[in-house]
Every structure is written in C-alpha cells, then in structure tokens.
C-alpha cells in the first residue's frame, strides 16, 4: 500500500493474475446469497440486478472512477491533489490517465492493482442491492452502483491502496504501516455495508415487515440451497481474493500465502461454528440463514486480517464474528426496525469493522491499532454521511422504491414481465390482507 511498489517477480505476477481470475467467484457467491435471501417473486430481478450492477460498476469505474483512484501512476505518479496541512501532505484524491490510458504500458503491479479494483468496485456496488431486495428498482440500483463506482469507491481506494492519506499514516504520523486493508474489508465490505444502510433508510422496509402492532413479520429467504451454495462458492473466491490482496497490497512473499489461506478458512469456520451453537441454544435448532450470514461475516473479517494475523488469532476473530452476527441481526430487526433481507449491515459493515480492528489489535508494529481506528473513524464519520447524501439526492431524481402495486405483484412481474419460476404457483401473501 505504498505509492512506489517494489517490482514483482514473474512468479508472483502470474500467481496474482491467476488468483484474480478466480476471485469473481466471491461476487458469484454474494449474488447467489442475495437472490436466495429475497422472495421467489423477485428472484429473476434480483439476479439480473446483480449482473447489471457489476456491468454498470465496471463501465463507470473505467470511465470515471479509475481516473480518481489513481492506481495507474501516469505523469502525476497517481496523485491528483495533495493538500498541505500542519506541515504534512494529505494526498486526498488520485489522478490517472483518462479512460485507462497507458494501461498496457504500465508496470505489472499497477495493472494488477487496477484489475483488483475493478473486482472490488463490482462487489462493493453489489452489496446494497441485496439489502434493497423486493423493493429496490433495477434502474435505481444501477444508478446507485454508478454513484459508488464514480465517486465514493475511487476516493476510498485511493486513500487506502494508491498512496492516499490513510495509507501514509505510518510515514506521516508514525502509525505502524499506515491503514492496512489488503483484502478490501474497508474499501469493499464496509463501504458496501454502509451503502446498504443508506439504501434501507431511504427505501424503507418491505410492506408488511413491521406491522403497526406487534413484532416484526418474518419474511424468510425463498431458497436456502442458493444461500448455502453461495457460501461455498464464496469461500473459493475469498481465498483467491485474500491471497491476491496480500501479494498486491502487502507485497507478501509467496511462502506467506498458505497461512493467509488457512486464516481465511479458519475465520469463516469459527464464525459458522459459533453461530451454529448460538442459534442452537437460542432457538433449539441451528438457523441455516444466520449460519450462512456468519460464514460470510467470518470471510469478510478475514479480508482485513487474514494476511496479518496468526491462525489462533484468526480463529478468535471468526468466533467473535459468529457470536455477534445472529445477535446483531436480531437487534437491527427487532430493536432498530431495520429491514435488511441480506443482512449486509451485519455481515459486511460489522464484519469488516471487526476485521479492521483485529488487524490493528494483533499487529506487532506500534501505532497500528490507532491507524486502523482512524480508518474506521473515516468510514463511519465521512463515508457513511457522504454515501447517504449522494443516495438521498439520487432518490430525489430516481426513486429507489418501487410503487406499491409493483411490490404487491413482485419485482419479477413488475420490472421484467415474467417470473423466475413460471411453473410454480405463487402463494398469496397474507401480509397484504
């Protein structure tokens, strides 16, 4: 995470490139989970939305975002503007040649960094889509993805990965190695989770979720097989993602990669085991949906710290993620009245913040924990209000929420004209009586 990266060996380059070709499986897994956690009458719209959002995010990032992220050095060295304050440089925005100019001639490391960012922006933009399930319009979802890919993600990616002020906290303020986020816990997952919160606040809950009297209505996901298979697919993608991140952003030696892979698996496994036990104790039987959420939360936490901690510490991080996940899902739904069908706030935002904190807590360098806390403060204090403001403005132009009739008949029929399962009988929804 320095502006002047050491040259990569051919073996490291080939391995990182191969890993990045497998990493989209994480996107596929999240897409499957998002779809499975929604209702059957919105399944086709949900999966098409996942695909469309990945496409929009990639195009907008190529047109606008990559220029601001500053990952291709160009003549400016990747820095767009450096603000001087208190005698320190604050590199707050990047600048790369427009429309990926000079990509083919850029150093190998910069090309890989850019490819990593393309995948990262696609996943970050996908996360809020799942939280808006069953009421978030397709065009609005794509527009929200465009906003993230054009403005918010590039800023954050520059700050964290491309020599921006967060990555330079070590150089400028002697805070460890600066803010560390090799797997995209902050730039992808916390950003996605906080965007999900903004979408939920703006679009509101699904109709019938919170009746005027009584407890919240349970609206379970329509396909547990999609959800659980998505978790398995995600593991493959996450392993590739974390290893590629360690190679590209930490310049890790090849010998360090097996530990990173083991840590990723251990974090997810400990989270699943903890939630399995918690739901077994609380409800008498393990809850498949919450276990899937915990598995994903463990993977998300590992994005921040798998390359930086020991296997024992990784187990502890996963275990905490597994304890917190079912409890936070319950608190958000029952105490705070937040309708988050995919659990993105818990899984991606809380899981990512936990991983970022753990990366500082278990670090050996002095000041690393403070660097991680500054990064967390930036995400909560600057990124969340910025995303909310941008989405609020977007909602004034392009309404996020579908009209009541569309919500009643389902997003598939309303937006696509046909359902995902045309031979199935659609059950009458009792909540509309």
């Amino acid at each position, binding site marked *: 995470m320095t502006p002047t990266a050491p040259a990569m060996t051919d073996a490291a380059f080939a391995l990182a490139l191969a890993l990045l070709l497998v990493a989209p499986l994480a996107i596929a897994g999240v897409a499957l989970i998002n779809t499975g956690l929604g209702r059957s009458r919105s399944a086709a719209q949900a999966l098409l939305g996942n695909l469309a959002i990945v496409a929009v995010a990639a195009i907008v990032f190529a047109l606008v975002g990559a220029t601001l992220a500053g990952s291709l050095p160009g003549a400016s060295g990747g820095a767009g503007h450096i603000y001087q*304050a*208190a005698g*320190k440089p604050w590199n707050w925005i990047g600048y790369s040649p427009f429309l990926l100019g000079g990509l083919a001639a850029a150093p190998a490391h910069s090309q890989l960094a850019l490819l990593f960012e393309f995948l990262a922006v696609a996943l970050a933009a996908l996360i809020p889509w799942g939280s808006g399930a069953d009421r978030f319009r397709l065009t609005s979802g794509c527009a929200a993805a465009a906003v993230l890919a054009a403005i918010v993600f590039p800023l954050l990616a520059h700050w964290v990965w491309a020599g921006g002020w967060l990555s330079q*906290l070590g150089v400028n*303020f002697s805070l460890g190695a600066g803010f560390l986020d090799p797997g995209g816990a902050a730039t992808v997952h916390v950003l996605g989770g906080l965007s999900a919160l903004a979408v939920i*606040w703006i679009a*509101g*809950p699904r*109709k019938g979720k*919170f*009746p*005027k009297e009584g407890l919240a209505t349970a609206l379970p996901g329509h396909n547990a097989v999609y959800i659980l298979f998505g978790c398995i697919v995600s593991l493959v993608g996450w392993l590739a993602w974390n290893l590629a991140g360690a190679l590209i952003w930490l310049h890790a030696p090849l010998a360090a990669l097996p530990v990173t892979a083991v840590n990723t698996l251990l974090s997810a496994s400990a989270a699943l085991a903890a939630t399995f036990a918690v739901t077994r104790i609380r409800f008498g039987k393990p809850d498949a949906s919450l276990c899937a959420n915990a598995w994903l939360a463990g993977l998300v936490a590992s994005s921040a710290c798998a390359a930086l901690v020991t296997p024992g510490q990784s187990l502890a991080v996963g275990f905490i993620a597994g304890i917190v996940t079912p409890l936070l899902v319950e608190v958000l739904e029952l105490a*705070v*009245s*937040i309708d988050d069908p995919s659990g993105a706030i818990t899984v991606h935002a809380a899981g990512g913040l936990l991983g970022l904190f753990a990366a500082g807590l278990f670090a050996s360098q*002095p*000041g690393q924990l*403070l660097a991680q*806390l*500054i990064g*967390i*403060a*930036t995400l*909560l*204090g*600057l990124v*969340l*209000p910025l995303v909310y403001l941008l989405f609020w403005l977007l909602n004034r132009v392009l309404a996020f929420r579908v009209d009541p009739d569309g919500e009643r008949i389902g997003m598939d029929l309303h937006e696509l004209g046909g359902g995902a399962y045309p031979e199935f009988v659609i059950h009458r929804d009792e909540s509309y009586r």
Partner: protein
Amino acid sequence: MPAGFFLSIAALVLFPASASRTAFVLCGLAVEALGLGVAIRGHMQARGESRP
C-alpha cells in the same frame, strides 16, 4: 458523525504524544457513535409516523 471524524483527524495533528492522541481518536469515535445513534433514532421515528 463528520464532527467525530474531524475530531479524530485533529487529534492526529495536534497531539504528538501517543496517549492523548489515542484518547482523542477514541473520543472522535464516540462522537460518531452518538451521531449514528441519533440518525438511527431519527429514521425510526420518521418510519413510525408513516407505518400502515
């Protein structure tokens, strides 16, 4: 929430000593948590008024 962020950044610049710097960054995070709480409460109230 932005006030908490700027408090954290100000701590970086104003306090070279590790202990006071850490304390003020934590204060910044606490201010952000308060802001998040207020935002959540505001949305709950707004939604409660428009319940069907």
